């Protein structure tokens, strides 16, 4: 009698144990050195929320904000790893590389959102077969296409100002492509190598006089100081082209590229797969969508007349 009762109780307990397993609290560490990329995190969180991962309920984010300097990334990375996180979300290419370096042993999954050139920078072996603990969303090299659009909108452009950090792979590669595209035209690219924020301030104070347009590349340092460029250039009535829509929303003239928010959203699906047990090495790197964006307010301020047939194709931002 007692034995049967005991077995019955055991069955009931095991039923509640196995079928009502308490929800696991997932831990995600976020690593970034550029504040501008935080929008991606916003999209990422929103995406995971759609998939049922509610912050502080069944998912926890460890993020002390962008480090500002690349050199501060190792410390931030260590801090994240100490939390024993289930996944690391990196918002910039250097952050991705730092996380990759720090997870060589424990292979904590990493999702980059984004990394500009994941194969070239060595984050993954290939787009459809990452091969290690890292995968994510990239945005491809659409920069030449942006220049094509820019020239289509501003056909009189002769001099393009290109501020970039020569230590960052992404703007360097882009620059080469751009140079190739304008090789046989009368358009010239004026480059400005920058290493620090101070360099940027200095360069902005000494902008070349005859530049027609500022072309902001996919450079973390430059992108993070976009507001400084906007402040100076809008005053000087020099249009600024930015790589992604976020910049246009902040006040730049145009962009042809991805939306960081949407990219974050896209990357959340990959993260969901990993949290559900997927192995990052088998999850291909996805490419974000990109679109032409024009800030119509800025357009008016600058006194630029964009043809309707172009305007009709763009995402208009007021």
């Amino acid at each position, binding site marked *: *009698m007692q034995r*049967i009762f005991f077995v019955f109780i055991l069955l009931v307990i095991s039923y509640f144990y196995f079928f009502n397993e308490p929800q696991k609290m997932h831990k995600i560490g976020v690593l970034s050195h550029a504040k501008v990329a935080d929008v991606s995190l916003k999209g990422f969180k929103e995406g995971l929320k759609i998939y049922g991962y509610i912050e502080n309920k069944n998912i926890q984010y460890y993020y002390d904000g962008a480090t500002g300097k690349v050199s501060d990334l190792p410390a931030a990375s260590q801090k994240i790893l100490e939390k024993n996180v289930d996944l690391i979300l990196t918002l910039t290419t250097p952050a991705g590389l730092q996380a990759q370096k720090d997870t060589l042993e424990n292979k904590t999954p990493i999702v980059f959102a984004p990394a500009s050139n994941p194969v070239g920078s060595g984050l993954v072996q290939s787009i459809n077969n990452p091969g290690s603990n890292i995968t994510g969303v990239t945005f491809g090299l659409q920069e030449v296409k942006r220049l094509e659009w820019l020239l289509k909108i501003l056909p009189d452009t002769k001099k393009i100002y290109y501020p970039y950090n020569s230590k960052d792979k992404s703007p360097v590669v882009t620059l080469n492509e751009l140079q190739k595209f304008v090789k046989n035209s009368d358009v010239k690219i004026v480059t400005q190598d920058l290493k620090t924020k101070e360099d940027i301030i200095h360069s902005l104070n000494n902008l070349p006089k005859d530049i027609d347009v500022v072309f902001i590349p996919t450079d973390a340092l430059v992108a993070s100081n976009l507001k400084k460029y906007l402040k100076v250039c809008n005053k000087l009535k020099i249009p600024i082209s930015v790589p992604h829509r976020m910049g246009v929303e902040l006040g730049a003239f145009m962009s042809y590229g991805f939306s960081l928010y949407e990219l974050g959203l896209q990357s959340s699906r990959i993260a969901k797969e990993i949290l559900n047990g997927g192995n990052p090495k088998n999850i*291909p790197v996805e490419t974000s969508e990109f679109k032409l964006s024009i800030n119509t307010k800025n357009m008016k301020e600058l006194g630029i007349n964009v043809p309707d047939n172009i305007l009709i194709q763009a995402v208009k931002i007021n």
Partner: protein
Amino acid sequence: MFSGIKKRLTLSLILTSIVPLLISTVILLYSEYTVQKKQTFLLQKEESIRISEQINEYFRGLEKDIDFLLSITSFVAEDIRIKKNLLSRMISKENQFDRLSLTDKYGMEIFYIDRTLPFVENKEFKYTNQKLTNKVIQHEKNYYGQIYFENKSFEPLIDAAFLIKNLKTSDIENVIVAKIRFKKIWELLASVIHLEGEEVFVTNSKNMIVAHKNPSLVIKKTVANNPLENGFVKDRTNTYVLRSTNSFNLNGVMFNVVVQRNIYDALSLSFNTLIFASVLMVVLLSFIFIVMKYIDKSIINPILDLSNIAKEISKGDLKQKAKVYGNDELSFLAITFNDMSRKINKTMDTLKEEIELKTAVQYNLETSEKRLLAIMNNTNAAIYLKDLESKYVIVNEEFLKIHKVKKEGIINKPTSVLFEGEQLAYILDQELQIKLTKENITTEEQLYLNDSEERFFLSNRFPIFDKDGNMINIVGVSTDITHIKNIQKQLENFNKDLEKKIADKTKDLTTANEELEDMVNKLHQTQEQLIFSEKIASLGLLVSGVAHEINTPLGVALTGITYFDDITTQINESYSSNNMSQEEFENYLEASSNISKQILLNLKRTSNLIQTFKQVSVNQIDEEKREIDVKAYTNTLISTIPNQTKTIIQNNIPNNIKLNTYPGAYGQVITILILNSLSHAYDADEKGTIIISLEQEPNQLKLKFSDDGRGIEKNDLPHIFEPFFTTKRNLGGPGLGLNILYNIVRQQLKGKVSCTSKLNQGVSFEIVIPIV
């Protein structure tokens, strides 16, 4: 048997509960399985058809978009810049195309608009998907090419060629070759509400997944496992799924829309039923178990107990009692059963007692009969038992032997079989008297057996009565006394002879007695003579001892006096011849002085020896008896003995003991004992203790003397009272002390002396003196 009942009960319970449940579960499961399978399959099929239609719709939509472009603009007539602009707008609209190329009516590319790449003018014309454009131009119909994967993003793309005709002439002017993206279809699949465990994907003719809500699978170029196979199939992940596929043809391109669901989710109802039924079965089994336990406890166990008790009782153990469990019918049965067994037990006890009693009686009877027969058959008397009609009932062996008949010839036969005439009349008369008097008759009878043999019998006849006092038998015991009679006669003759013989013998004995007395007298005389001879011999021994002892001093004295005589003769001669010098005279005087001293000493010694020898003869003390205080007298004796040793003499004799004795004899005894111990027991400077004590008994005094000296050797002890026995002959002891003591005690004091000693443990003397 009872486990059989249990089995049958359990089986019945199972048959009435589990089996129907099992059957209904199987039926339910089967119907649920078939219904759900069919339902799910159909739903999935419907979904796949719907999605197929939507995909088809999507591509048709793209075609319509192109048509719309042509219908609202004079596309063919517009210049190239506007054409570029229009196509660019097509791309920008929804990002549905990766590239749009415009060719001339021969399929040569005029320009292209790319989603990601800028247009770079090529000086030379080239074909864009020439095969497809040719097909379109040739058949004047839109066509789709095969699906392929883009190099960089690994996105699947499909080329489509759309005809552009001159609205007026209807001639083919241009062809638009579009690289159509699948992203929209992915989004479509993502927007479909997926049920639990459901997967929806689109494959091309090579079974490659080109659209999935998870783009990773597409980018990875995942191959589906037999997408055209419907029903239960094994998926690419080796799990079983219920699959419904719908295939459709898009202008020559095959698409398969697959909707599949994990088997567990697809048949969730059936599985739930199965689980529910299993749980129910477990619960039922538990219930059956509990019920069986209850039945076991309340019915089967009591029955089993009763059965076991019955078995035990059948084996004869009537003390067993059935357990009473409660107050139901079984308990009543158990109580009745116990009552029954108790009664049986009681009856059995009574029966047993009776049987035991009867067995004992029978045994006693048999024993008695055996004893009787043994007595009867082992006696010399002829015994017979007759009934009141004088017929023989029992006879013994001796009877048969005497009468020389067999048992069969005598039992139940009348007396007349053995006797006749006067003898028969005599016997019948005797028996008649017994019947009348009912008393014993003992007679001596002279019978002539077997006609001639004369025999004497001592016959004892007596009646036997039953328990009511009625005479039932007459017993006769006839002892053959013929031989005794003969001996009696012989004895009478022998007695007469004997008297004569005794008279003769008495005479002889008197003579012999006289002779014997003479002989005894002679023996006494011989004995006295022998004693005398012994005394003479011992006297001789004494004399030779005395002679030996006094010979030495007498010898010395004799030698001395001889020498004195010589020197006296010499000095006389010198004096006579006036030749004597003063020196000579002085020498003589010195010598004579020395010699006389020597002689005197040896003669004194001789005298002492003779005194001592005199003491050996007890009779030398001719003194009167008088009463002495033993303790005081002994103290006086001790004080007179010169004691220069360190030995202490303790007088432990109690006060006020008077003894009427010869004081000299007593004193001598004490003195000898003390001197003996002082001279023999201890070494020169040894410190010893001598103890003298006395015990007074009714008729005697027990004088005890002991020392703690070296003791006497075992071999010497029997000889110490012998004359001249000494261990210190070299020191001049004659060895007479203890002999003197022995003679005084025995002869004068009429007592006894004994000595015990062990070497190095002292000596103890005990002298018993009778009180006269």
